[in-house]
């Protein structure tokens, strides 16, 4: 019988692979050993039941109260914070986007600096920004708006600059050949190419900001988070239930609308 040549198993870099496994194992052992497991609170089961029953039998009366401070007004406030914050950041990030785009800025160092500033803004947690803005303009929705407006510049600026980097230079050359000024080139050759991407990313960021706006109230920066944290502290679970339902409903509806608009734009 002829021996059939069996395919040889590809040689992998065994050493690398094993060192990764060992490293992972060490990380996990260290991480798990550091978690205090002093047992759950005895009331944990009870509270879970209370929360579930609260969510299943929400406090419908809270949806609208004539004297104010109700669910609808809280949700509208949250929506307003997200809209204004997104608008401010969409406006402010445009210069950053052109600064960070490789093809618009002369020299690699300038674009690199722009990119670094954007990633710095992106890493700065929005809640910490909100805490700082509360010190500046006092607690309330406006601090939340400013925090979202500043924090979103990081992500929007990055996405916009990538959009700017991907434009076609044909129209720009064509306009230059006809003797258009710098501003005219920008307006008639660059802007039409990037507008759909801009709108789509802004809407996407708006979806994220709506989620953020709903928790800003936990630290006192306006929106539905404030009544939610009060209801939690006073263990009013049926009110927590209705607020949670309200947030879920609002986020879902806005996601659907925004998703539809984004599909239409691009």
């Amino acid at each position, binding site marked *: 019988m002829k021996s059939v040549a069996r395919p040889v198993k590809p040689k992998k870099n065994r050493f690398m692979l094993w060192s990764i496994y060992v490293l992972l194992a060490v990380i996990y052992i260290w991480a798990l050993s550091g*978690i205090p497991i002093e047992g759950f609170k005895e009331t944990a089961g009870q509270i879970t039941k209370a929360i579930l029953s609260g969510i299943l039998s929400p406090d419908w009366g809270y949806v609208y109260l004539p004297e104010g401070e109700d669910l609808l007004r809280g949700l509208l406030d949250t929506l307003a914070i997200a809209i204004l914050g997104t608008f401010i950041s969409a406006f402010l990030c445009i210069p950053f986007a052109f600064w960070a785009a490789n093809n618009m800025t002369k020299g690699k160092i300038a674009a690199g600096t722009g990119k670094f500033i954007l990633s710095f803004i992106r890493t700065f947690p929005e809640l910490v920004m909100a*805490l700082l803005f509360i010190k500046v303009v006092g607690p309330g929705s406006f601090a939340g708006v400013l925090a979202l407006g500043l924090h979103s510049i990081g992500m929007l600026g990055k996405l916009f600059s990538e959009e700017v980097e991907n434009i076609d230079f044909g129209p720009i050359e064509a306009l230059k050949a006809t003797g258009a000024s710098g501003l005219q080139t920008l307006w008639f050759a660059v802007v039409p190419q990037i507008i759909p991407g801009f709108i789509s990313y802004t809407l996407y960021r708006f979806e994220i900001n709506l989620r953020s706006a709903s928790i800003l109230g936990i630290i006192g920066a306006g929106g539905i*988070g404030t009544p*939610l944290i009060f209801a939690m502290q006073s263990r009013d679970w049926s009110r927590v239930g209705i607020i949670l339902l309200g947030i*879920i409903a609002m986020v879902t509806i806005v996601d659907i609308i925004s998703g539809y608009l984004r599909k239409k734009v691009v």
Partner: protein
Amino acid sequence: MKRIESLNMNRLTKQEIPKAPTKIKHYLTAALIVLLIGWSAYQTESSFIDFVEGFPNMFDLLVQMYPPSWSYFDDIVPAMLDTFRMAVIGTTMGALLAVPFALLCASNIAASNWIYYPFRFILNLIRTIPELLLAAIFVAIFGLGPLPGIFALAVFSMGIIAKLTYEAMESIDKGPLEAMTAVGANKIQWIVYSVVPQVSPYFVSFVLYTFEINIRAAAILGLVGAGGIGEYYDKTLGFLEYDKVSTIIIFTLMVVLLIDYISTKLREKLL
């Protein structure tokens, strides 16, 4: 003959200047946006004057933050390690939970839409709840400490990983699936030998990506009492110790940027 010519002429003159498309729609959209922004500004009581008046405060704040208190580093290192731990365990738990969820959500694996539509719906509901809110709920259940933070991160990361993974599963090559069916594999063999090899690099990449998000999230979960470095913001801001606040912020930024860098490099290698 003449009549036809004149008709043609007529049509030509009419066609000479094409009508510009109406811009009414654009104007209406712009008006709507301006209206929305105006309403938002009114609703949030935002005013430019407040901002300008508050601006010196911001400058004061920055001045007070300026020399960061470097000696404070020693105090917050354990909290930062805790944050890292929470992110590691939370992400892992989320990843493990995400596997069955993703399999049940993928339309080419869970064959009936009676299975994958309900699971996708649940997944979407989970993803609408922000992580800080989950943490606040878990703190109410389990009490203060890193444990509720871990659970919150686990649920939150399950939502992200399951969504990304089931979308990756739906775009895999059909060939191996059919081959496994043809040789009579049962459902588990079918998944292990035809789905897993195709999806696993993506899955690992998604887990790393979620880990990056979770480090950022874990750094603020302490604001609701769920452990980690976030607890120190309350402590220091309450006593107006802004030099310490800036130390915390700088430390967090360094850790996050470092982990982002490593994770991005790893993900580039994977895919």
